[in-house]
């Protein structure tokens, strides 16, 4: 097995685990962190699978913009609850 294949297998497994973790985390705040990690893993996956354009998109979106929007949503919901 060459290192590239090994790397591919590893990152795919990590994506699978991170995805499962996002779903199974029931607390939205922890989940936001999970999504951030999941996004990062996907981004790494794209990079390893030779898709740098997509990796860059996924990085700015999945690991930064999306978690930010989620946190802001949670903040607003919490505010409303008070």
């Amino acid at each position: 097995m060459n290192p590239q294949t090994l790397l591919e297998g590893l990152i795919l497994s990590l994506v699978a685990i991170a995805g499962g973790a996002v779903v199974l985390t029931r607390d939205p705040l922890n989940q936001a962190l999970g999504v951030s990690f999941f996004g990062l893993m996907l981004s790494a996956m794209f990079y390893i699978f030779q898709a740098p354009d997509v990796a860059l998109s996924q990085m700015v979106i999945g690991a930064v913009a999306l978690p930010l929007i989620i946190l802001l949503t949670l903040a607003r919901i919490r505010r409303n609850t008070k």
Partner: protein
Amino acid sequence: MKLRLTLFGLGICGLVALYGTVIAHMPGPGKMHSPYSRAINKLCVPQRHVTDAVTAVNFDYRGFDTLGEEFILFASVMGTLVLLREAAENKGPLSGDSASEPRNVRPTEAVRVTALALVGPTVVFGVYVVTHGQLTPGGGFQGGVVLATAPLLVYLADDFKTFKRITSHALIEISEAVGGGMYAVIGAIALVLSRPYMTNVLPLAQSGGIASGGIIPLISIATGLEVAAGFVLLLYAFLQKTLAERESS
């Protein structure tokens, strides 16, 4: 709930089995047969003088898809604005409940300085990514999101006056619309010359240069403008209430 889970259990077993059947019929590694990708890989440098094939597909070969995609962003941002603005209006921006809010913790001086110091490089990097999409990975979309984080850094640095000034709502809204409209108009240049919509009619310049690709860099800039403005608006919509409160405190 029990009925739902039973139903779902049945369904998902079937669905996974079917999905598996399809996977088993999909060609294995190295046996993929895609005339499309072969054609693009062969044509994109000679035809478009563009070194990043993904950008060529995105903004030229399948540029019409990207026009639709731009407007998906546009529609969603407007929808979010509508929904959240109304929520703010119902109570009025400065209603009483802000007083009971715990004061937000002020960032330390170190955070402020770092955040402000990062604004410049972020803008430069964003502009670079937007304008070099035809050469290296990146393009209007990725660069646009990077640009959108610049005002956010100003916000993190707790400089609300500047934040409000640079994110003047009307201006940003107009930039977003201009970005979207510009894309539609660039495509229409070809119509004037009686060529099909989105035809790349500009001179292509030397491959590897920043002006290579004809209309591709222009479209990329339009996209960057739209995406950056769109994401600022999204963040703004979610931040709106917090902002009003911070300002009053």
